[in-house]
């Protein structure tokens, strides 16, 4: 049985752990608020971009010679899977969930006889994926130096991806990230970047542009050509922002649980400690009494 001193040490170590998890929870909560604000602020741009694209692409879809970013290369052989995860651990199932979704997708593609290339954003996902698909990873984007995610952080990644596409290194690109729904729920999402997914119904697209007849300057096709590469950057930026919010939300929940667990552990350890202490006192008393009786 553990001695009193051991128990005491144990209790104090759990207490200090609890202090850390509590602090981390609080930090995550404040970071979450900031991340959510950033995600919210980015929404108008993405929404407008989407509505313009939807309007333009529905008409351009049938036109031969449209940008391959919209209609694809005509092949489906090489897939680029972009996995966006966090730079730091201790955030519950956040990274695991994204990686799990990505891995499922990768294995499905491999089973279908496709070639898969992987681009990792964030080293936590990289560490896990490397184990199974190390030879397929083409690059790791480290964003650990980034404190506040800016559009300028997403742009170089997008440019690199576009350059690869231009060189014909892949046919389809999809981005894996966790969509933020609430502090408790983050949904791993697979978003296709290239070719750009087209809005499903034409009615929506028409509505989005107000049903008006637009004058285009220059022509529709050049606007679309200009817009599509920028859309890739916007989508990546948006994914990263969602990811940042999800990461903090997930960390907050995980740390809240850890704090509560630590509390329970402290309670049960304190009970054991008190019982042991009492048992010791009783034992000593019995020893004294029996000693006195023997005289």
């Amino acid at each position, binding site marked *: 049985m553990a001695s009193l001193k051991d128990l005491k040490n144990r209790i104090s170590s759990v207490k200090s752990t609890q202090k850390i998890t509590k602090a981390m929870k609080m930090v995550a909560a404040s970071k979450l608020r900031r991340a959510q604000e*950033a995600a919210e*602020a*980015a929404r*108008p*741009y*993405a929404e*407008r*971009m989407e509505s*313009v694209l939807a309007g333009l692409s529905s008409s351009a879809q049938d036109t031969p010679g449209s940008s391959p970013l919209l209609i694809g290369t005509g092949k489906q052989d090489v897939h680029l899977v972009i996995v966006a995860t966090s730079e730091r651990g201790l955030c519950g199932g956040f990274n695991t969930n994204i990686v799990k979704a990505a891995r499922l997708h990768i294995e499905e593609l491999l089973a279908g006889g496709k070639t898969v290339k992987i681009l990792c954003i964030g080293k936590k996902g990289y560490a896990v994926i490397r184990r199974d698909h190390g030879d397929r990873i083409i690059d790791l984007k480290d964003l650990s130096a980034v404190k506040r995610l*800016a*559009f300028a952080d*997403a*742009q170089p990644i997008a*440019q690199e991806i*576009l*350059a690869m596409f*231009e*060189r014909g290194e892949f046919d389809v690109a999809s981005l894996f990230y966790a969509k933020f729904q609430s502090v408790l729920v983050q949904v791993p999402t697979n978003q296709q970047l290239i070719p750009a997914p087209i809005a499903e119904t034409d009615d929506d697209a028409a509505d989005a*542009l*107000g049903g*008006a*007849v*637009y*004058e*285009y*300057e*220059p022509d529709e096709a*050049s*606007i679309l050509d*200009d*817009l599509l590469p*920028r859309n890739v*950057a*916007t989508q990546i*930026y948006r994914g990263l922002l969602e990811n940042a919010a999800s990461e903090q939300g997930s960390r907050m929940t995980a740390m809240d649980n850890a704090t509560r667990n630590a509390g329970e552990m402290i309670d049960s350890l304190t009970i054991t400690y008190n019982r042991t202490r009492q048992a010791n006192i009783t034992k000593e008393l019995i020893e004294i009494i029996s000693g006195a009786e023997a005289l």
Partner: protein
Amino acid sequence: MTDTLHLEIVSPERLLKDAEVAMVVVPGTDGDFGAMPAHAPMMSTIRPGIIEIYETEAGEPEKLFVKSGLAQISDTGLTILAEEMIDLDSVDTTELAAGMAEAQNAVNAATDDMARDQAEAELEWRRVLSEIVS
């Protein structure tokens, strides 16, 4: 008919401006155009240049430098999607010159069309901005 134009300028990071104005002059790719209330619906890409915002018809315009973007005029007003805006007062000329030299090098060093296009775009906006500032 409304007598003001609803203007929205959005960057990927946030909504930069949401205001009722009298007129906006936008540097379109095919030439500058002024947008006034009840303009016909149109869409245009933007070349590097100055967006002039006239709050009132007679007043001094507010000027914003924009690198690239898209302007859309619909029934609801003018929406400008712009990646990056630069405040003219905060331009650092030495930094700009360094950036220009760097972009020029990138143009020279570019090996394929795409890299060259990108580098040229970088050079172009810096050139335009330096002309405006000086």
